[in-house]
């Protein structure tokens, strides 16, 4: 059954061969038109992805080493590490922003995500009206973060907000300006973010809990494990894929946090975040592309940690 290469080529050209060698099969399965079509199908999305996502990312790195006002390419001057030196040493909002991002991450990680998990675990039981409760907690996930910023502004408003009415301080001198006081407004914004985040986590964990083999729980309860123990020693570890996604989502969401604080006060006065500083340096009056890009690179480097962690876990099996 020796097939010469000439035969295979002929077969490939016609698109039909009677008895191909296994090795050559892949070549033979495409006509020339198929190859063109397939190249276009892969080429266009890849081109879009390269030109609009990956090249800009590389350019961001490049721009972080220059001094530029964004107007003319000839104005561009090499700055070396100058922009980085500036943001680390002289740019006053930088370190507060880093701190706020860390606090944001810890808040979502310690309060937002566990709260969503708790909702999921409680609502996964056959409670009466569980679907209604699920819909209530899930509703904020459908809203844009910008809109959430507006809705919570109405809630937090110093003179007319519901919160101060409920606390009985509205209109009195001791009424707290929840969004206007540095040191307070970050917590107010994080609660608004949690309002959405917990519902998102709940939905993912509800799906995760359904995927856990019921016999696992049964076995645990037969062994005499209490509800608490059987959850943390059996059910929770069995949801490992969901747990990984949740960890990644929590980290990435806190690095991406932008809309809520930008809607509240453009990310100033105690609401500085890295993502906001990037934009403040890029749009607005004095465009300082170099500084903005250096901030973007800092954000990129931090983001790569969860991204690489997630990708290496997801694609490890396929590469092997």
């Amino acid at each position, binding site marked *: 059954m020796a097939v010469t290469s000439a035969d295979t080529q002929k077969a490939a050209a016609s698109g039909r061969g009677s008895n191909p060698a296994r090795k050559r099969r892949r070549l033979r399965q495409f006509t020339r038109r198929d190859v063109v079509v397939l190249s276009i199908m892969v080429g266009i999305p890849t081109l879009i992805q390269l030109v*609009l996502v990956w090249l800009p990312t590389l350019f961001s790195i490049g721009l972080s080493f220059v001094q530029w006002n964004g107007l003319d390419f000839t104005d561009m001057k090499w700055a070396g590490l100058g922009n980085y030196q500036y943001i680390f040493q002289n740019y006053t909002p930088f370190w507060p922003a880093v701190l706020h991002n860390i606090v944001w991450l810890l808040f979502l990680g310690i309060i937002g995500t566990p709260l969503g998990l708790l909702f999921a675990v409680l609502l996964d039981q056959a409670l009466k009206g569980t679907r209604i409760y699920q819909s209530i907690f899930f509703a904020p996930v459908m809203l844009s973060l910008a809109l959430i910023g507006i809705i919570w502004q109405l809630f937090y408003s110093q003179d007319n907000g519901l919160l101060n009415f409920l606390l009985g301080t509205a209109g009195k001198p001791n009424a707290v300006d929840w969004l206007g006081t540095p040191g307070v407004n970050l917590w107010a914004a994080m609660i608004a973010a949690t309002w959405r985040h917990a519902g998102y986590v709940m939905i993912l964990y509800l799906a995760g809990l359904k995927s856990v083999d019921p016999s696992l729980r049964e076995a645990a309860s037969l062994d005499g494990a209490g509800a608490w123990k059987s959850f943390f020693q059996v059910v929770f570890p069995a949801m490992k894929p969901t747990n990984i996604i949740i960890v990644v989502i929590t980290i990435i969401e806190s690095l*991406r946090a932008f809309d809520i604080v930008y*809607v509240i006060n453009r990310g100033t006065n105690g609401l500085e975040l890295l993502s906001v500083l990037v934009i403040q340096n890029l749009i607005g009056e004095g465009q300082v592309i170099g500084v903005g890009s250096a901030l973007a690179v800092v954000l990129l480097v931090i983001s790569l940690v969860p991204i690489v962690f997630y990708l290496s876990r997801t694609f490890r099996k396929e590469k092997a």
Partner: protein
Amino acid sequence: MTTATSVRVAPHQPAAARRHKKKHWATYLFITVMAIMWLLPLVWTLYTSLRPKADTDKYGYFSIAGHYSFQNFIDAWTQGGFPTYFGNSVIITVPAVLLTLFFASMMAFAVSRYSWKFNVTLLIMFTAGNLLPPQVLAAPLFELFKHTTLPYWMSDSGSLLNTYVSVIAANTAFQIGFCTFVLSNFMKAIPAELTEAARVDGASVWRQYWNVILPLTRPALAALGTLEVIFIYNDYFWPLVFIQSGNRLPVTTAINNLQGQFLSNYNLLAAGAMITVIPTLIIYLVLQRQFVAGLTLGASKG
């Protein structure tokens, strides 16, 4: 499933069952309190939007006296320029979602049905792209669009800035990665024999994609489509960066301007906020299952 278990256990262990009941009571209390807290901001906004400013000025916002009407909605709709903003949202969202699904499904088809050298590399590149914070790409994309010169009959800015195309392109590029990842996982589960058989019958690659695989992918496309409509409708960032003319902004980005426009008229602002919720609310009520399926599709593999 859980009820069945507890019922079966109950006769043997009455003490445990009683404890179980007590715990249920505590669970209800906790979850109900949380649910009320969860609803408060939304209910407060809706409540405020239904009351005339004159009444809230007179009685205060925290009161029940006065009239209730939809007048604020009518005023916000006309004064706020909502018809334009909603139009812009449609102009941006519809093509962006269709292009995203089209490109992502082609890419997913290619990487899931055929194996070649750069398969996994490409898939990793696509997935990673979706996870980056958009702020990282903002400056170079802004400059790229600014320095893409277009004739003035195509764009009054003479470049891609301040055009719908710039927002559609950025959204599409950013969402393709996620959709490709989800769709390729879905397509991998479709038996290889199907395309094999089609190929033996002489079907071209395009026919295998369009007539064999795509119809089978419909559930995933429906779920992702719903999800992407919400994602892109809710996108605040790209129009903020690329669009300067207020009358070209989509609703989500434009509501921020309403704050300045309606100044301290919280009633109008609340009505405006509620108006922007309406499309999401409709999708929520009609396609909630699709939306949830879309969210969990992306997370089911890790």
